[in-house]
């Protein structure tokens, strides 16, 4: 009984055979995740900064953008980019579709979080900085953002972790990340050990990240 269980889920020869494939997927997952985190957080910060200029028309569009991307399931956005856009002549690879979709989703969430952080900085800070002769941008960059970013770290970390886990959705549009490689391995070997290996790869990748998230939450907790 135990033997057949091990043979099915922890079949060492099968695992050894598909290890290089899973490793390739691992590298691709990391690349995809890093690309998403960088572009998503930067774009989110940029939008929050733009929003602090309080241009009414612009802010209206920012709010619409953020709301739409928070309301749509990421998989729907990926499928839209990958399967729907070609019908108007826009084609992109699965990697590009996944990167773009998840970056946009992260942008929306990051913008909301940064904006909440900016609002949380007391008005007196703005006024004091401006009265010393600093310009609007100097105040924002040197006084407000450093304080705002500190309180945004815990929610931003958690949201970023949740969205990077979405890289697995790339499997649906043929991105050769961990899950896709594991599924290919499963269908070639007719043994679920590649899936086990894939699951282990995710644990190796995300357990440290989840623990980091917990640590960040206590380390940067809002002092009341």
């Amino acid at each position: 009984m135990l033997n057949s269980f091990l043979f099915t889920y922890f079949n060492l020869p099968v695992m050894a055979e598909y290890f290089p494939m899973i490793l390739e997927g691992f590298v691709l997952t990391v690349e995809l995740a890093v690309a998403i985190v960088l572009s998503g957080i930067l774009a989110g910060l940029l939008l929050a900064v733009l929003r602090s200029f309080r241009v009414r028309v612009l802010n209206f569009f920012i709010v619409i953008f953020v709301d739409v991307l928070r309301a749509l399931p990421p998989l729907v956005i990926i499928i839209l980019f990958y399967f729907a856009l070609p019908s108007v002549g826009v084609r992109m690879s699965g990697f590009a579709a996944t990167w773009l979709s998840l970056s946009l989703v992260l942008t929306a969430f990051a913008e909301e979080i940064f904006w909440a952080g900016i609002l949380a900085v007391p008005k007196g800070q703005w006024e004091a900085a401006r009265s010393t002769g600093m310009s609007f941008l100097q105040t924002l960059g040197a006084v407000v953002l450093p304080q705002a970013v500190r309180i945004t770290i815990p929610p931003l970390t958690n949201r970023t972790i949740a969205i990077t886990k979405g890289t697995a959705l790339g499997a649906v549009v043929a991105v050769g990340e961990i899950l896709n490689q594991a599924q290919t391995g499963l269908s070639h070997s007719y043994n679920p050990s590649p899936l086990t290996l894939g699951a282990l790869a995710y644990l190796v990748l995300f357990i440290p990240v989840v623990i980091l998230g917990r640590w960040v939450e206590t380390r940067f907790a809002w002092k009341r």
Partner: protein
Amino acid sequence: MEQIIQGFFNIEIVVAALPFLLRGLALTVLLCLVVIPLGIFGGLALALVSTARSFLVKGLVAAYVDFFRAFPPLVLLIFIYFGVPFLGIDLHAFTAVTIGFFLNTSSYYGEIFRAGIESIPRGQREAARSTGLTSVQTLVFVIVPQATRNVIPDLVSNTLEVVKLTSIASVVALPELLYAARQAQSITYNATPIIFAGIIYLACLWPLVRLLSRFEHKKVALH
């Protein structure tokens, strides 16, 4: 422009695909009605168990929570749907989705409830116990109601995520909204059903997003 209307907003296709999409929506709603209460009760149970004094119990709950939060939900679902049948157990897609979602969402809800329970001052428990309530009564009548109220925004936010997450059930061929849209697209060779499914998600979830936004701004204003 003509091409965009033909390809994305084709009225004839909407009319033809609508019954299909609505059936998908019905299944999405059903799925939500099953997985959300399960996840909430599972999470509450986890949080209550983690109030135990035993470090072993606390450690086990934390390990469960971190383990299932480390897996992308889709990976969990694929593992259950394609991996478990090798044990000789036949799993319906709906069952696989329910199990996968339970493992994933109960850990998230569990973390939220735990934070809520920890936010209640010790004095509340001591006061309740000193009036003669048992420890179970204290939890049920004093701690949990206050804890829940404190974390309502997080609960709503997580529930929104769960509703959105149901779209991954399409990967294991459960004919919910996204799956129905993909089917309709491949039958009609037209992307309109997918756009329309997106609009349906948007129409259902936008009010929730607005509500959350309001919660978030209120939280900031309190500081």
